């Protein structure tokens, strides 16, 4: 009784049985089965519980549009996936699957109480019920809604699979490998054009797989298909199955996801689970076909009620009868053929019930010859059966009046409300649609992309028609690519099942429509009644109706529900469908894993981690690292037992006492060369450069054209025509881009060129009273004396035998040098200096100590002490702005009224009265006794412990701060209010005596 497999039917290999489990019970299927087809072969229709009402549900479709049969799949630890469509997942030996949204079991679910209380859960229910009190939302309502509704459970373990991505360029991409796509690919594969044909299914063929009765060019459809695929391969067409075109992006970029391992019993090594293909096609042929529409009537969601075309697919492709006593309810000819196929395969079709009053004689005689009862002008008004449909209630309709009901006993209901062309990808292109009144559907019109749409996806019906259309469109795109394809002869098709139908809203009923559970969106449990209620409550646009009812908002994105929903809403509004509108199709076409989007970018490969040539030394010496833009930099070097504060205090003290060594290689470096180099520098930076002599350096300040500080750095003039510019670590790429932008668009007349040399050099900074003593013995070409090489000098020389660019600069207030050697020689020089520095107790320090030492001197860090709204004057660096220059980037911006107004936030130092360390980002007020919300007048930008100063120090921006030296301000914290005195930001050695050798 439980075997629904039909021998001699289908493409599955029953000689290769496969066992898998569903909710812990083992079932047998055949090679080629999906979970759904295998369960149906075992007589199992109940596969899940619905989202809101927890109603029992079974597969309603046979493909990726399936809204109901969503299951969890598992393949060992970490490999659990919720919400997989049972109609897509292929079975393999040992596959574990589970139903969802049920407790304690699929057959008895306490959540189904929602179904009895369905009157409460009407459209807009959440908005109406969970409004008051506001405070209940976070703690009561939202958790309740989240717990009550929902589908599968999110996986909690890390995904052990790997995901891949590739780019692919082709001349013609054909989406959909049904007869249309096959014909298009064949026609386009001329003159060496590179053609790619993709299909989401496990095998190519589309509708041909479900229509073995057809004969094309005298051959049975499946034989023709085999030969055709071989011919396409011969022509060099790349055929990709299990590959879904998920989105159509600008300029013919199509995203496709290929599933590589979900169907395999064992995971092959080095093979990703999924691969994202980013395809750039010169021409695209869309041949996605059409999707069948359900009919909307009371009880149309009971397990066993399914689309007639899908029943035909289960029979012809998988060799499975979805029922032995099916009944058909339809408004389209296609369902008649499904009935004939099932009857011919041994089922006893109870009746074909058609809404229409007349159908073709061919169909009637087909039914008659098979002894199938036909009921025309009938409607369906209900189903019965608890976990599986057991009867369909049908009533005659005469002149719009619904007559007495009659129960037809059955074990499956096959329904068809007609077919909807798949316009998803076409719509992604911003393609316009035209309403077709005859077919009651939208058809494709114009698209801005190099794209054509063919076959059933533009409303054609029948194999002969779509083969001809596919071939024509294939030739058209080949011609657009400069080829002259030969005209192909039309292919003769026998057994073609052409036909038509009418489109319905809800089926007429003799019962109260207000109590009907006639589902439009199965996945989100939206009924026709909900849609009409939404219209009664004032929703006029389909976009509002959609959001109010959630129709079409589930993971199937309304593949089945959108058109029925629109027809019902339009009917309720008394308007034509185009006036009500169609909701937007958005990618992805089917649910797509995060893994496919992430591709290779996970774990260690998530993002580039740039390391300097000296990074390895830091790692070997126990450095703790911090990320600075893409770089990882040594943060501090703790000795055993030291915490961060202790290590940083030791590094600071040692550097000020003797000498510290620091890896400054990440600083951006730009070589500016050419006869107009100095003019370029004058225009780019605020400072004047003309009088800077070769061999000298200057601190440069870079503004945006708004007058705010963007970057800074020390710049050395190596010769008349050559500058060595340094930038901040994070600003390197941005600054070079900004400079190139000005050079190429504003000043193309300047004879100057920019080259990034950030990575040409390893840069080692030596700072401290012993820095010159340590370095001098290694330097050839210059004497490290106050006279020969004063502060802010630069020279090309030799250091430890290595060609070097030596700068005398200081970001610490101590005697300082920055030695640039060719990148790969950096570590060698570092080790040489480290060894020689032992006699001075040399200390390696990281970015934190660098921050403290510069803060003690009041040097800003762009991006920490500035936030894009700080001018040089705000920072007390008016001295860096060339007053006599005719122009520079930001000069006009600096003259804006707001930038010269009084009361701007200005850069100052802060010393707390209680000697506590302030929190960076803390807000500052003048009067701590004012009412809340207090007026915030600035914030703390930097804050550190400082042994040199003898108490913690902070930097801040405060309104009118420069005029408020010595005043007390307040920093309110959660537990107390801290008082602090405004000071000059230079805490250490304001006379710069320590810079002297």
């Amino acid at each position, binding site marked *: 009784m439980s075997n629904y497999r039909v021998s001699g039917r289908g493409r599955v290999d029953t000689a290769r049985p496969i066992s898998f489990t569903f909710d812990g019970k083992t079932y047998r299927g055949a090679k080629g089965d999906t979970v759904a087809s295998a369960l149906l072969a075992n007589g199992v229709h109940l596969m899940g519980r619905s989202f809101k009402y927890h109603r029992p549900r079974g597969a309603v479709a046979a493909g990726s549009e399936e809204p109901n049969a969503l299951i969890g799949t598992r393949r060992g630890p970490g490999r659990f996936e919720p919400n997989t469509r049972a109609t897509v997942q292929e079975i393999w030996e040992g596959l574990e699957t589970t139903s969802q949204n049920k407790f304690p079991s699929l057959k008895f679910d306490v959540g189904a109480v929602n179904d009895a209380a369905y009157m409460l859960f009407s459209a807009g229910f959440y908005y109406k019920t969970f409004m008051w009190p506001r405070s209940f939302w976070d703690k009561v309502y939202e958790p309740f809604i989240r717990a009550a509704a929902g589908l599968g459970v999110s996986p909690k373990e890390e995904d052990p699979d*790997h995901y*891949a*991505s*590739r*780019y*692919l*360029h082709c001349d013609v991409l054909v989406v959909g490998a049904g007869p249309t796509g096959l014909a298009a690919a064949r026609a386009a594969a001329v003159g060496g054009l590179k053609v790619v044909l993709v299909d989401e299914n496990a095998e190519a063929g589309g509708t041909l797989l479900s229509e073995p009765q057809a004969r094309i060019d005298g051959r049975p459809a499946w034989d023709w298909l085999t030969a055709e695929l071989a011919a396409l391969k011969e022509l060099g067409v790349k055929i990709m199955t299990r590959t879904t075109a998920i989105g159509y992006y600008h300029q013919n970029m199509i995203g496709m996801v290929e599933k590589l391992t979900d169907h395999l019993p064992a995971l*092959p*090594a*080095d*093979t*990703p689970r999924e691969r994202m293909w*980013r395809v*750039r096609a010169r021409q695209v042929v869309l041949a996605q076909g059409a999707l069948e529409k359900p009919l909307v009537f009371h009880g149309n969601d009971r397990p066993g009620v399914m689309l007639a075309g899908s029943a035909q697919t289960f029979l012809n492709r998988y060799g499975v009868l979805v029922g032995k006593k099916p009944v058909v309810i339809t408004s389209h000819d296609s369902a008649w053929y499904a009935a004939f196929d099932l009857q011919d395969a041994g089922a006893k079709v109870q009746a074909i019930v058609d809404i229409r009053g007349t159908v073709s004689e061919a169909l009637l005689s087909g039914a008659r010859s098979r002894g199938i009862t036909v009921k025309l002008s009938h409607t369906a008004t209900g189903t019965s059966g608890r976990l599986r449909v057991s009867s369909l209630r049908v009533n005659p309709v005469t002149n719009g009046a619904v007559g007495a009901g009659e129960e037809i006993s059955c074990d499956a209901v096959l329904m068809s409300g007609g077919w909807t062309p798949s316009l998803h990808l076409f719509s992604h292109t911003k393609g316009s649609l035209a309403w077709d009144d005859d077919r009651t559907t939208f058809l494709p019109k114009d698209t801005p992309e190099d794209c054509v749409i063919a076959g059933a996806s533009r409303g054609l019906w029948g194999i002969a028609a779509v083969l001809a259309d596919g071939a024509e469109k294939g030739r058209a795109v080949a011609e657009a690519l400069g080829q002259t394809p030969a005209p192909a002869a039309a292919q003769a098709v026998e057994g073609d099942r052409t036909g038509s139908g009418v489109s319905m809203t809800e089926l007429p009923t003799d019962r109260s429509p207000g109590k009907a559970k006639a589902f439009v969106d199965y996945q989100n449990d939206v009924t026709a009644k909900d849609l009409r209620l939404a219209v009664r409550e004032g929703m006029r646009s389909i976009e509002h109706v959609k959001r109010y009812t959630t129709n079409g908002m589930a993971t199937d994105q309304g593949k089945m529900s959108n058109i029925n929903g629109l027809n019902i809403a339009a009917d309720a509004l008394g308007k034509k469908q185009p006036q009500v509108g169609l909701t937007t199709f958005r990618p992805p076409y089917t649910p797509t894993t995060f893994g496919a989007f992430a591709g*290779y970018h996970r774990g*260690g*490969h998530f993002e*580039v*981690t*740039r*390391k*300097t*040539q*000296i*990074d*390895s030394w830091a*790692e070997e010496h126990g450095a703790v690292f911090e990320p600075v833009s*893409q*770089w990882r930099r040594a943060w501090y070097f703790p000795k055993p037992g030291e915490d961060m504060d202790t290590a940083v205090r030791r590094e600071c003290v040692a550097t000020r006492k003797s000498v510290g060594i620091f890896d400054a290689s990440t600083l951006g470096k730009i*070589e500016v*060369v*050419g*006869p107009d180099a100095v003019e370029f520098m004058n225009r780019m930076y605020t400072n004047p450069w003309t009088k800077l002599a070769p061999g000298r350096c200057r601190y440069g300040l870079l503004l945006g054209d708004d007058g705010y500080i963007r970057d800074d750095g020390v710049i050395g003039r190596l010769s008349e*025509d050559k500058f060595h510019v340094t930038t901040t670590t994070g600003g390197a790429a941005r600054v070079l881009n900004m400079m190139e932008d000005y050079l190429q668009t504003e000043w193309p007349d300047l*004879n*100057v*060129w920019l*080259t*990034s*040399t*950030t*990575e*040409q*050099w*390893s840069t080692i900074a030596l700072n401290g009273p012993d820095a010159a003593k340590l370095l001098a013995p290694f330097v050839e070409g210059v004497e490290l004396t106050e006279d020969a090489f004063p502060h802010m000098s630069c020279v090309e020389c030799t250091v430890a035998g290595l060609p070097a660019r030596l700068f005398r600069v200081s970001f610490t207030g101590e005697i300082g040098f920055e030695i640039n050697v*060719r*990148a*790969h*020689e950096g*570590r060698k020089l570092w080790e040489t200096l480290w060894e020689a520095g032992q006699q001075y107790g040399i200390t390696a320090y990281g970015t934190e100590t660098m921050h403290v030492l510069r803060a003690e001197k009041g040097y800003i860090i762009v991006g920490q002490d500035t936030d894009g709204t700080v001018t040089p004057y705000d920072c007390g660096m008016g001295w860096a702005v060339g007053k006599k220059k005719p122009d520079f980037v930001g000069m006009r911006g600096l003259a804006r009224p707001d930038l010269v107004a009084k009361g701007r936030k200005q850069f100052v130092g802060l010393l707390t009265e209680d000697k506590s360390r302030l929190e960076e980002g803390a807000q500052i007020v003048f009067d701590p006794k004012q009412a809340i919300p207090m007026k915030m007048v600035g914030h703390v930008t930097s804050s550190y412990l400082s042994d040199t100063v003898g108490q913690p120090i902070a930097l801040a921006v405060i309104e009118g701060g420069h005029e408020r030296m010595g005043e007390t301000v307040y920093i309110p914290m959660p537990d107390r209010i801290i008082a602090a005195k405004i000071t000059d930001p230079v805490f250490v050695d304001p006379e710069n005596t320590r810079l002297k050798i």
Partner: protein
Amino acid sequence: MTAHTSSLSSGVAAVSSAARVSVEAPCGRLSLRARGDLSALEGALGLALPRKVGGRAAAGELQALCLGPDEWMLHAPLAAVSGLVEACAGVYGALPHSLVDVSGREVSFQISGPRAAELLTLGCARDIDTIAVGEGRRTLFDGSTVILWRDAADSFRMDVWNSFASHLLHLLEVGVRELAAEAL
């Protein structure tokens, strides 16, 4: 020699039936920028600079790849760099230009094998087929700027900045295995 995590040593990094990736020995690299009549520079270099973006020229061991209307990347033996710099400096008066030694900035991978071009599609959005043998391009690979030199139908060089090298090499290694595992 200490093995440094932050710098790659030359030699084969990954190999499979599909492709082979190796890190090349250091070489001299110069970034050249100039406009106008280039004959003075060409005389100094002993090489006619290609004018078409993507075009290449070679003279002896000196190779030039045109990257932009006024931009070339030159590759030469390390020992030849100082001579080239000096020779070009000699014509700076006649033709002002920028010649910057970037030998220390980059490392090159050699990518070869029957599916070398396909390996590049893992990270390069441009159509590899449009880079003719004997040409080159500056492009992006896995989000980072690289220069590709196509030396043969199945042989490429990829110049990358030092600090991006291990990240990019990791993807190439994964790809070398992934391609080999594919049934064709």
